[in-house]
């Protein structure tokens, strides 16, 4: 599988990273290099193998469904690039 320029632009869009036109070819070459490298997994027979999703040798812990945290709006907003009162602000979405 080889990525073309259109696919690179589509991935960049999905990843929400602005990519300038002159970067596309370089990125395509680098990403294809990596995908070519990982393609060696094709030779491994994984018939009947269950996928391993995590590093933990344990079952997920459950806890009671109760509020354990909160009431810290000021701390949460302290690093906001822009705020208005107790709200984060972003460019207008709906005109």
């Amino acid at each position: 599988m080889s990525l073309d320029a259109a696919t690179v632009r589509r991935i960049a869009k999905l990843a929400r990273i602005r990519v300038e036109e002159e970067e596309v070819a370089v990125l395509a070459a680098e990403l294809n290099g990596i995908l070519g490298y990982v393609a060696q997994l094709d030779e491994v027979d994984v018939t009947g193998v269950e996928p391993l999703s995590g590093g933990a040798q344990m079952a997920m812990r459950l806890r009671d469904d109760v509020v354990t945290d909160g009431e810290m709006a000021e701390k949460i907003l302290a690093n906001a690039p822009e705020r208005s009162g107790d709200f984060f602000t972003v460019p207008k979405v709906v005109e």
Partner: protein
Amino acid sequence: MSKAVTGKPAAAPAARTELCGLTIAQAAAGLEARKFSAVELTRAHLAAIEALDSRLNAFITVTPELALEQAAAADLRLATGDGRTLTGIPLAIKDLFCTEGVRTTAASRILEPFTPPYESTVTAQLKDSGAVFLGKANLDEFAMGSSNMTSGFGPVENPWQRRGSNVKLVPGGSSGGSAAAVAARMAMGATGTDTGGSIRQPASFCGLAGIKPTYGRCSRYGIVAFASSLDQAGPLARTVEDCAILLGAMAGFDAKDSTSAERPVPYFRGAVTAGVRGKRIGIPAEYRMPGMPEEIEALWQRGVRWLKSEGAEIVDISLPHTKYGLPVYYIVAPAEASSNLARYDGVRFGARIDGEDLIDMYERTRAAGFGAEVKRRIMIGTYVLSAGYYDAYYLKAQKVRALILRDFEQAFAKVDAILTPTAPSAAFGMGEKMDDPIKMYLNDVFTVPASLAGVPAMSVPAGLSEEGLPLGLQVIGRHFDEETVFAVSGALEQAADFRSKPAVMAKGA
């Protein structure tokens, strides 16, 4: 560039930088016996930082005022005989650990303005043990790299140099600043994180001991996430014993991390001198690669002889899926990273670049805030998780990951620990291996499999290359059996008797 030094610099004149040469165990004993004060010890390290770090760039942020406050508090405790394991010990904290009130950047421009309102569990535990924090250590951006060249705050120089050469070398990565700080005696120990080798490879490159514990041993709460199923915190220090002391303080169950292991923390320090008599040590045939220098193979064989003469039984083993570790890693880690790094959108924290609309703001913020390697990995991760490719890449990688774990499980039915080289080379020059991402990735070929399996692994300095650079050996153990890892590492350290020192180091240390 933008090194932030908060507060006034330490009063330098009387700094006893020779104290910087002590190990943590020695310094703790010296502090307890009141041979020197915690303030003196911290001053000495701050003076070393002031003298060396404009060159090495191991720190992104230095906090002398805070450090001296903590040291003064340590002296009060010591005076009343109330000292704890790390009271007064000056450490460097990888700038991936959130520290309340102290800027935490992950070496990314996107987090340049971020000051966490909370403390990571690991650093909170270190503080509770009495440690003094000198500042935040440099790293590869979001811990993605093996050279510290991807830092948004400039590269770190390795304090070691090739014999008769002044070519600047990389300290390895991603915990490169942590490793350089400890090697240059600017800190007695440091926290690191390891996702695919980020503690062990820099430890090897800088002549240090460093352990990635079992996945789940240290809480990930408050550590900037890269690949959550792989990320583990661990210490770097100049001796195996110092690593054991530090890990003892860092480890433990934490309800705030859903993958934290509900297990008691053993007395790691006691394990260091346990010896290897009767222990079965596996030597995996697959830990060789084309172009690997002969001296690394020779070092490995020397390690085998050392353990044998200490009474260990050497067993040839096979870990047949070793070569697939890196390709699995370069699917799984970017996939998790693409999800974890979605949070950096310029809305709630971090940098923002304005745009024409909301989407444009996201895209401009992320384009400006992330460096090239981070963007590459986010895009690879986005691709392998995208509709139509998920099964071919991500699911396949997870299945091969299961086979890699099975390799280790089968091996550990026959042996108690595994001995391998840590990295396929010694430290390389700044700027080398930058032309092709795959070349850089190959640094982690021997460290990635243990990360994928979640088993503990430690690098121990075992000798010098022909060019006079440190080389490490790696000891891999069973899940939650760090004690055997420490025992084998302790035996290797004894036998190797590694005493070489880097070219750039605190005066008199």
